[in-house]
């Protein structure tokens, strides 16, 4: 595996499966009496968050702590960054503090790659969401969740049908998921009004539909993306209600899903807009499993990137 995780493109299918398998091993340990592993003792993981995202930060923080790493949370909001300090100066400060891994969340697409490529820092860089580009650990935790619900697709997603509905254009979750799901063999259909589909989607190995109702009864997995109401102000769609009527997962649509299909959402949800309360809370929803799997998958990523001895050996040590 490469030194950094910036994009799903950094992973081969077997790299990705290895992370998922590692996460499965970690799950077994987490179910045991001793949840904490000594693997990353003495290593420092910095959570460098230029955007608010309490969920993602807490997930990475607990992942690092369960591997015994020291964790520094650097929230750039309200810090020197908002006073004009550059990404470069912030990175070099972290370098001087001896960070082994930097988990970065940033509003600018490509910020994680710049951090990794620029020579400002020698730590491993993990992209925890960069602008409207990618969010690779979200895609990995989604794949892990799918695998845990569909054991028949454990080694390959060939034959699995996934629909992703929502603001594809601005979604880093969608980009990472499209790359990972197709890499693992799944058939992906993107569903959104045309305004929320990128013009360059022709290059993606997916189908595109503007009609949720024609797709919904065919998928095994329906990923519902968060829709930000500011998109309405930019005329991407006329009103929240019109969006919800066309693309929201309401009770009627929930009932038209296959009985074994699952509903996913990266959170936080806008209940009543892209997903109704009944759908969010239904037995087909795996939203909470996604959250708990997030910690396991992020542990696996930190483990793989920062290196450690074989898991079994460490458990017995």
């Amino acid at each position, binding site marked *: 595996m490469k030194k950094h995780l910036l994009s799903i493109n950094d992973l081969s299918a077997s790299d990705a499966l290895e992370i998922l398998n590692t996460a499965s091993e970690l799950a077994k340990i987490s179910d045991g009496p001793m949840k904490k592993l000594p693997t990353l003792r003495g290593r420092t993981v910095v959570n460098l968050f230029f955007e608010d995202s309490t969920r993602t930060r807490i997930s990475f923080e607990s992942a690092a702590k369960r591997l015994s790493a020291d964790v520094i949370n650097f929230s750039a909001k309200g810090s020197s960054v908002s006073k004009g300090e550059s990404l470069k100066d912030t990175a070099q400060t972290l370098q001087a503090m001896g960070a082994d891994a930097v988990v970065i969340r940033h509003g600018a697409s490509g910020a994680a790659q710049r951090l990794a490529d620029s020579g400002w820092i020698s730590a491993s860089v993990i992209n925890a969401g960069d602008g*409207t580009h990618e969010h690779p650990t979200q895609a990995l935790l989604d794949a892990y969740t799918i695998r845990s619900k569909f054991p028949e697709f454990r080694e390959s997603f060939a034959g699995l049908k996934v629909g992703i509905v929502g603001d594809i254009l601005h979604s880093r979750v969608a980009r990472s998921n499209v790359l990972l799901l197709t890499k693992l063999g799944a058939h992906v259909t993107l569903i959104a009004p045309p305004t929320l589909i990128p013009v360059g989607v022709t290059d993606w190995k997916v189908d595109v539909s503007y009609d949720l109702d024609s797709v919904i009864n065919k998928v095994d997995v329906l990923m519902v993306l968060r829709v930000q109401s500011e998109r309405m102000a930019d005329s991407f769609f006329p009103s929240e209600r019109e969006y919800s009527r066309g693309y929201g997962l309401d009770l009627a649509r929930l009932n038209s899903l296959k009985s074994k299909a699952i509903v996913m959402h990266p959170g936080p949800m806008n209940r009543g807009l892209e997903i109704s309360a009944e759908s969010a809370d239904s037995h087909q929803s795996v939203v909470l499993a996604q959250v708990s799997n997030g910690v396991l998958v992020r542990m696996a990523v930190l483990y793989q990137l920062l290196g450690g001895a074989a898991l079994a050996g460490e458990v017995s040590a």
Partner: protein
Amino acid sequence: MHFTIGNARMLDGNIVDVVINGDVISEIGSGLKVGEFIDAKKNLLIPGLVDLHTHLREPGREDSETVATGSAAAAKGGYTAISAMANTFPVADTAGVVEQVYRLGQEAGLCDVFPIGAVTQGLKGEALAELGAMANSKAKVRIFSDDGKCVSDPLLMRRALEYVKTFNGIIAQHAQDPALTVGSQMNEGIVSARLGLTGWPAVAEEAIIARDILLAEHVGSRLHICHLTTAGGVDLVRFAKSRGINVTAEVTPHHLLLTDELVQNYDPIFKVNPPLRTEKDVLALRNGLADGTIDIVGTDHAPHPTEDKDCEWQSAAFGMVGLETALSVVVKSMVESNLMNWSDLVDRMSIAPAKIAGYSKHGNQIIKGAQANLTIIDTDKTWIVDRNRLSSKSKNTPFEGMKLPSQVIHTFLNGKQVLNNGLVVNGGSN
């Protein structure tokens, strides 16, 4: 003062000696040796290059470039005339500022610097600047442009086109519909979709070109389209010319060579306005330049200090330096690809731009009596771009490390050598 440029290869292949007397060519022949003899060693002698699109940053951003450092970069690139864009601080929208820039160019003495005046006050796109005052100033401004910004208001654009007819002026439009490019970061297409960067659709450029072509036709004025970047834009200009509309168009060296695929690592060295486009666009631009649809090459030399590029893509400044690489990049993209010969290149980079701007002492045939604005090029030499060896104060070249053909050896400005064996002659003052 007399001197002789000996053994110079003309475009037709003849080897001649050229005698310079004062600031003009006094004799061309063979076996001539009057005054100092500068041996051109059978290298190519062409009229000095002329740029209609240069950002010199002075006054206001002397940390990125000054008129003097930009002039040195121009001399090194083989340019004897450059045109300073108006987006300085303060904006070049008054006679005072354009006269200051003109005077700084004269003082530097390495290149003739012709200021471009702003079309609108403060480049705000709201009210016309004092175009007449700038035209009648010592700087004798004839080209007006809000470059960096588009004159997007159609009525204001119409008025500007009409108004400059008084003094045979020309409006150079930066074609970019602002509403279609809010927050735009790169060409909208396959690469922007993958990278999650806000797209800059080709139509934002083409819609303005189409509108302005029709306005120019309606009022019978001269229109110049800055830095064309799209295949559709080339088609529109071709259409306009077929209708007899008085439009000229420009392409930058970087748009003739680079594509949006280079953005893939988010290195802001490739961030430029208008953005790098696709290979299809590059090929259309090359063909347009070759067949004369696009009249000239303009560098859009846009210096920026290191910190403005040493950051994440979204925060970085738009622009690339280009004066010192322009000739070689055009040779690589146009001559080596056999789309143009050297005579075509001289037309697009010297004769045609001088004619559009009315720079009568530049871009002339090399004949007895012509102003001695000349450049000598070693067409066999290749060189590797090294940002640290640029004369420009800023180092933001997208061609770093690239091996390029042809090197400028000597440049002569108004009968005076300003570049000697690739070195800028110091203390050049008029």
